[in-house]
């Protein structure tokens, strides 16, 4: 048996890793990132002469589950047409048997790296609102992300925000879908009447993960997800992750994404984070839109639903909101007093 040198080992590893793009219209450029179940490469679409991101499975599962997950991820993305969600171009199987899909090549920075360039809280909150917009859209289409974290958010050169890596997405469907033609992928996967909590009659399907499978990222994963309680996941699980994400955005420290860590945060914002990351599902925001509304209200200087203000806090907020007019009136009054004093001398 031939002895393999260290150099030969490295070459064999590379040979085994690089996707076999022969017979496709793609040309491999470079390795970009690695995710939970696959690797993302930059490739050139030779027909359209444009750069694309090509995601390919690294290790094939014996039962084809991973391949199914990747295909499903591509299909989920393909149907979520939204400026905040990366568009998919193509899905297929390579000559080496590995499943792949291509998507828009996003040039930008991961949120955890980009955040350092944002100084003000309002700027960070505006980024957060764009994330909420994309996630809320996905929820409306019956898709839970289940792995929202700074590393899965990209910010483009023009400030565009993209929610990436839908590999752990869970697809929900409503009663209507169960009655429809099972051969229709739209009907079987994407019809979802209402994924908001408390809606009776919803059935959930997930071909991605089964009950008891824990997938996600600690710190951003909801307690029910951490328990592997897949059957009871709904929009509020993503809301938990959004709460942790908001905390991260405001503290600019991944270690502070968890509640209970000591750092200064305005009470209203702290209340929003706490409500979103409440341990009990029923104590969280029921929808992403409601959470986003609270954040928008904070940005507009209005009271947020998550926090009951004291008289002093109300006054302080009123002052902050109308500071210009209050100062103007105060200046006018001071001027009047000074003029009166001058005239009575």
């Amino acid at each position, binding site marked *: 048996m031939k002895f393999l040198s260290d150099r030969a080992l490295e070459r064999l590893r590379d*040979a*085994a890793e690089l996707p*076999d793009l022969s017979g496709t219209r793609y040309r491999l450029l470079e390795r970009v990132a690695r995710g939970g179940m696959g690797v993302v490469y930059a490739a050139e679409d030779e027909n359209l002469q444009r750069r694309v991101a090509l995601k390919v499975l690294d290790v094939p599962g014996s039962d084809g589950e991973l391949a199914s997950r990747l295909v499903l991820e591509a299909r989920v993305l393909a149907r979520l047409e939204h400026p905040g969600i990366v568009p998919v171009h193509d899905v297929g199987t390579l*000559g080496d048997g590995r499943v792949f899909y291509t998507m828009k090549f996003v040039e930008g920075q991961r949120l955890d790296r980009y955040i350092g360039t944002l100084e003000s809280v309002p700027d960070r909150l505006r980024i957060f609102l764009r994330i909420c917009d994309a996630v809320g859209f996905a929820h409306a289409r019956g898709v839970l992300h289940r792995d929202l974290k700074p590393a899965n958010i990209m910010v483009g050169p023009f400030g565009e925000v993209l929610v990436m890596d839908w590999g752990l997405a869970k697809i929900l469907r409503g009663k209507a879908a169960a009655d429809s033609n099972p051969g229709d992928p739209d009907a079987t996967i994407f019809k979802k009447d209402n994924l908001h909590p408390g809606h009776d009659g919803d059935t959930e399907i997930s071909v991605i993960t089964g009950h008891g499978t824990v997938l996600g990222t600690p710190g951003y994963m909801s307690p029910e997800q951490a328990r592997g309680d897949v059957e009871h996941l709904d929009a509020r699980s993503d809301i938990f992750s959004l709460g942790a994400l908001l905390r991260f955005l405001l503290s600019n420290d991944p270690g502070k994404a968890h509640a209970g860590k000591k750092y200064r945060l305005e009470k209203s914002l702290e209340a929003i984070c706490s409500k979103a990351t409440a341990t009990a599902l029923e104590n969280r925001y029921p929808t992403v839109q409601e959470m986003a509304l609270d954040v928008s209200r904070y940005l507009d200087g209005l009271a947020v639903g998550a926090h009951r203000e004291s008289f002093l806090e109300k006054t302080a907020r009123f002052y902050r909101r109308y500071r210009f007019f209050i100062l103007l009136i105060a200046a006018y009054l001071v001027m009047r007093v000074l003029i009166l004093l001058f005239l009575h001398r």
Partner: protein
Amino acid sequence: MSQEDLPSAGDRFPPTRRSVIEAVRSIDAEERELALAALCAAYWKPIYKYIRLRWKRPAEEAQDLTQGFFLELLERELLEKFEPAKSRLRTYLRVCVDSMVMNAEKAAKRQKRGGNLPHVALDFAGAEEELGGAVMDPAAIASPDSLEQFFEKEWVRSLFALAVEDLRELCAARERERTFLLFEAYDLEGNEKVSYDQLAKDYGIPITDVTNALAWARREFRKIALERLRELCGSEEEFQREARAAFGWDSK
């Protein structure tokens, strides 16, 4: 054991998806023997080198211990006790080796009793040559962590070497010897100066043939290596973890 005892494509552990861990527990004696032979073929060299370096045993004693280890696997039914959910097979075997060497006296007695080792050629002279070569520096692998890395690397080397042999046999069976020669020249020799263009000139074939041949050989190599690895893992989860470790996907 002689070179003739080397497992060939014919007597290889059947290319099923069944793991050797399950197969060694089989009631079918032939299946058990083939499974153990597959395990032995993949692990004997890393284990031998590990005993030489970790336990600093002389070559002859390390040879006895290596053979003794596989006998112990059989006699003490150590694989029966392996729980895929708790650890990796590779780590379990290494811990068993450590335990066995610590009780070397008992192992020596067992060795004297003799036993039925699986029919796998143990080319100790070749392994010794590799140890003595420039491929590794024993001084650089003193800590437990580096020993673990060393064992893992040797295990990957052994796995890939077996896969390369399988590929050679596959090429021969399909009358694609030239494909293997190209693969050998480009991917195994590790010569930076060899280019597709050079290979095309050397073999008098179009460069596209070189590209296609190498793409085919790599594809088959990957498939074979993963099949071999799957056989050597106790569970799907372990296979996923080990594949990422073996192919260096975790570290990239």
